[in-house]
């Protein structure tokens, strides 16, 4: 575990160094079309003063549209169908700087979906395993932030190879994993330093105004059908528009739809983000839809976040408290309120 500081005037060098001379793609918070996003950017354009990126960083590993393979017909061959997987080996590894601790925890939730003892998604794995993830702690959580309510912290460390925080005159950094330690060692701009006390102090200050743990004990203890049949769903569903904004901005929503697009030469198979809020998501070929109304669809999302993921991921909450859905929901459906209702 190493601790460093980066002086303000060395920041650009440091960011450049993170690319390992261009071998890694560098992703950091930067402005695009008036919004701060975690995107591949010029080290010069990194922003350190932000609440959180507008969207979650999941698209770095799970792009909204991802090509899986190409296929075409070659009638000259005895087996005329030719397939070629795409995107597994062609991209350079990433280094991400400036992940908020909540989002890093979100990636951990996704990682356990895409890689687990039952199966491994190669598209996720190829990007996720090779990436170096450096967090940036929150000093000033926003009004809708509630990471502390769901087991996180503005200075949380889960899922990160290193965590940084902003201090007068630059950054401070602490490595968290062996890979992180290895990666940062000797990078230009870094100076070794003792930052433990400062970190603890800042952490305490940041957590001070944040909400306490959200009680989910009853949810954890209850049978699925018990929560499923609670009467409050109807009330929330009243105002839910099924617009899906929550799922698109959520760092742990990970559903996708696989589509083929073809022309006369051949076709591409790709996967695109999907949303359980959508009618199309569950409609069967017969026209039957097991989630026929918005109530079932809305309930599915909360059940998934607050009941199914904890069941499958050893009690870890599927919501990491970034507050994006709370802020962006056009009808102010607040997951904290729903969680309370679910807990009775």
């Amino acid at each position, binding site marked *: 575990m190493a601790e460093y500081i980066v002086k303000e005037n060395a920041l650009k060098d440091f960011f450049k160094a993170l690319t390992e001379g261009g071998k890694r793609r560098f992703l950091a918070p930067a402005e*695009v*079309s*008036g*919004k701060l996003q975690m995107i591949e950017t010029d080290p010069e354009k990194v922003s350190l003063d932000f*609440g959180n990126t*507008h969207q979650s960083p999941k698209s770095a590993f799970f792009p*909204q*549209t991802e090509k899986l393979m190409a296929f075409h017909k070659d009638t000259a061959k005895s087996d005329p169908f030719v397939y070629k997987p795409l995107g597994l080996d062609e991209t350079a590894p990433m280094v991400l700087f400036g992940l908020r601790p909540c989002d890093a925890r979100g990636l951990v939730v996704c990682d356990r979906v895409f890689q687990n003892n039952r199966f491994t998604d190669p598209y996720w794995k190829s990007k996720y395993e090779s990436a170096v993830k450096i967090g940036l702690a929150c000093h*000033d959580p*926003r*009004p*809708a932030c509630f990471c502390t309510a769901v087991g996180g912290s503005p200075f949380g460390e889960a899922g990160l190879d290193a965590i940084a925080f902003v201090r007068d005159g630059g950054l401070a950094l602490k490595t968290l994993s062996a890979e992180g330690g290895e990666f940062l060692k000797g990078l230009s701009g870094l100076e070794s330093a003792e930052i433990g006390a400062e970190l603890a102090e800042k952490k305490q200050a940041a957590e001070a105004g944040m909400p306490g743990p959200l009680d989910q004990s009853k949810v954890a203890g209850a049978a699925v059908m018990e929560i499923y049949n609670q009467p409050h769903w109807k*009330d929330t569903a*009243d*105002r839910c*528009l*099924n*617009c*899906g*904004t929550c*799922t*698109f*901005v959520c760092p742990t929503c990970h559903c996708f*739809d696989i*589509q083929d*697009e073809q022309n006369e030469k051949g076709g591409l198979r*790709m996967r*695109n*983000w999907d*949303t359980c809020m*959508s*009618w*199309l998501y569950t409609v069967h070929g017969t026209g039957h839809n097991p989630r026929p109304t918005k109530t079932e669809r809305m309930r599915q999302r909360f059940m998934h976040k607050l009941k199914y993921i904890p069941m499958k991921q050893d009690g870890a909450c599927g919501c990491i408290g970034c507050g994006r859905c*709370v*802020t*962006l929901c*056009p*009808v*102010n*459906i*607040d997951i*904290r*309120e729903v969680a309370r209702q679910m807990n009775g």
Partner: protein
Amino acid sequence: MTSLPDLNQKIQSAAKRLLAEGKAEVVIGCRQGTTPMTVAPIFCRTEDDCNQLIWSNFAKINLATYLPKYPGKVAIIAKGCDARSAVGQVVEKQIERENLYIVGVACGGLVDVEQIQAREPRPIRAAEEDWATIKLSGDGWSSSLPKEDVLRRNCKTCVSRTPEGVADELIGEPTEALPADDYADLKALAGQSLEEKMAYFKGLVKNCLRCYACRNACPLCYCPVCFVDETRPQWLGKSQDEMDTFTFHLLRAFHCSGRCTSCGGCEAACPMDIKLREFNRLLDEEVQKDWNYLPGLSWDQTPPLTTYRPDDEADFIK
């Protein structure tokens, strides 16, 4: 001008009265949201529910969005645009007139939270509002903004702030209609090069996530199956292809033509703050020019795409 607390009081009593008299089984309105500058729609079925009703500058979506196929008798606390959309839904048979009760509230325009945040980047911990001013406060600071400065764009050209004529009752003093959209910017753009027009409109939607929140927040988009969700044939690809995205927006605007009441709900719902109404405005301008039609102003209107005149002028047809 009636103060907001007074207005809220009146709305609450009206709602309670409607429930008590059986004129409505549910009253749809707004209540305070869970975070600053948010408002939540509320479906009031009890007196307690009614006591939460407010009128807020921060309301986002058009409450008429909830009306299509709503079972039973329903009342809606409606601004001008909500009321117009509700009328449109009656015209389009999405709700029966006798099951709908419109409590009209004179509106002074809504505010755009994005614009507020652009002017006040500090984390806003609380917001207070009255008819003309927004007061903001954070950790150890406070400031205030004239509402006029941060009005939603659609509210700046609202011709139907007061839902007169169609509301079953009206609360608050009527507010003057504003000068209608003159489409000056679009007219200017029409004179630009093709590249500039294309760049402008494609640029508008380049960050579109295809989440379709605009559609779901729209009181016009009540189709059981939207064309983007069609599979046979699949009208549009599902990927983030530029042309598929662009086509979605063109067609959605086309479907709203002659029906859109400029409520701005689509823009308010868009998580990427896309100026979606630019597409609708293109067609609004044309609908008004060709047929002098504004939707939602009376119960017996004929939407322009459900009728024709033998002498409709279309010089571009050879």
